[in-house]
């Protein structure tokens, strides 16, 4: 079996050397060592279990290790309906995650409230925390969740190292009331 390694980032190549920018090297390493925090509240969580299991095997993407403590996680995977009472809890978990961090909203409920257009349900988690990737579906199949993870990996690969210090990012956090 031929093992396919990850592609090298753009860079300068010559006899016996390869040079690239630090942010690309760091991005490459980060994108293949995501530690997700599964925040599963309903059926999308079941799809996520299938994604983690043998057939789809999320571990292939470097995410073998799920973290149930936000301290060690850098990808928050919100899967399922988030009630308005759950909103502050979700926000607190997001705040307490390690830097830098990303968020993926899996399924219609996490992305937009889904079919629960009602007084008690948060109409999308982007009302309380910034979201990087939305995965549509009710619930999305494991392939769709994997596609979302690959999109997150692309984001991580191409993120400049100084993005989190930029005024744009700071104002984004400030708009959510996060220090």
């Amino acid at each position, binding site marked *: 079996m031929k093992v396919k390694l990850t592609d090298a980032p753009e860079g300068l190549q010559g006899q016996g050397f390869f040079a690239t920018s630090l942010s690309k090297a760091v991005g490459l390493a980060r994108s293949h060592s995501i530690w997700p925090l599964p925040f599963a509240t309903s059926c999308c969580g079941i799809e996520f279990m299938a994604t983690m299991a043998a057939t789809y095997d999320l571990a292939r993407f470097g995410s073998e290790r799920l973290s149930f403590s936000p301290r060690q996680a850098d990808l928050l995977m919100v899967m399922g309906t988030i009630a308005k009472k759950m909103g502050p*809890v979700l926000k607190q978990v997001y705040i307490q995650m390690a830097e830098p961090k990303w968020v993926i909203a899996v399924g219609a409920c996490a992305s937009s409230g889904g079919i629960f257009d009602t007084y008690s349900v948060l109409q999308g988690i982007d009302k309380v925390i910034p979201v990087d990737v939305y995965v549509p579906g009710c619930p999305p199949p494991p392939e769709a969740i994997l596609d979302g993870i690959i999109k997150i990996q692309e984001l991580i690969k191409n993120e400049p190292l100084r993005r989190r210090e930029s005024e744009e990012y700071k104002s984004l956090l400030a708009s959510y009331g996060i220090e």
Partner: protein
Amino acid sequence: MQQQVTDSLTIDYIAIFIQFIVAAGFVITTIAVTHWLGPKRKSAKKLQSFECGLDSIGNARLPFSVKYFLVAILFVLFDVEVIFFYPWAVNFHELGESGFVKMLVFVVPLLLGYFYIIKKGALKWE
């Protein structure tokens, strides 16, 4: 002559010393550098103790009744005693009389201890 022997000993072990220094140095350097280089954000909410996203209430280190400890430790003691009974029960016939005597030697001191704690009232909850 004596001097030569100690000299060569020191030289022999220098490689191991260097290995220890490299091993410890690598660990210390990695930990220090990751703390120094890693991005951080320190806000009051982030540094709060993690309680599954809920606000923590009160102190986790509250005093509680010593009776819990006493019952727990006695449970561990007699639990282990019962575990020893199992292999004895399985081999009861093979071990025969000598096995029975050996088990008595093990059980009788514990039984004396049991009577002692009953008499002391260690298991009285009220």
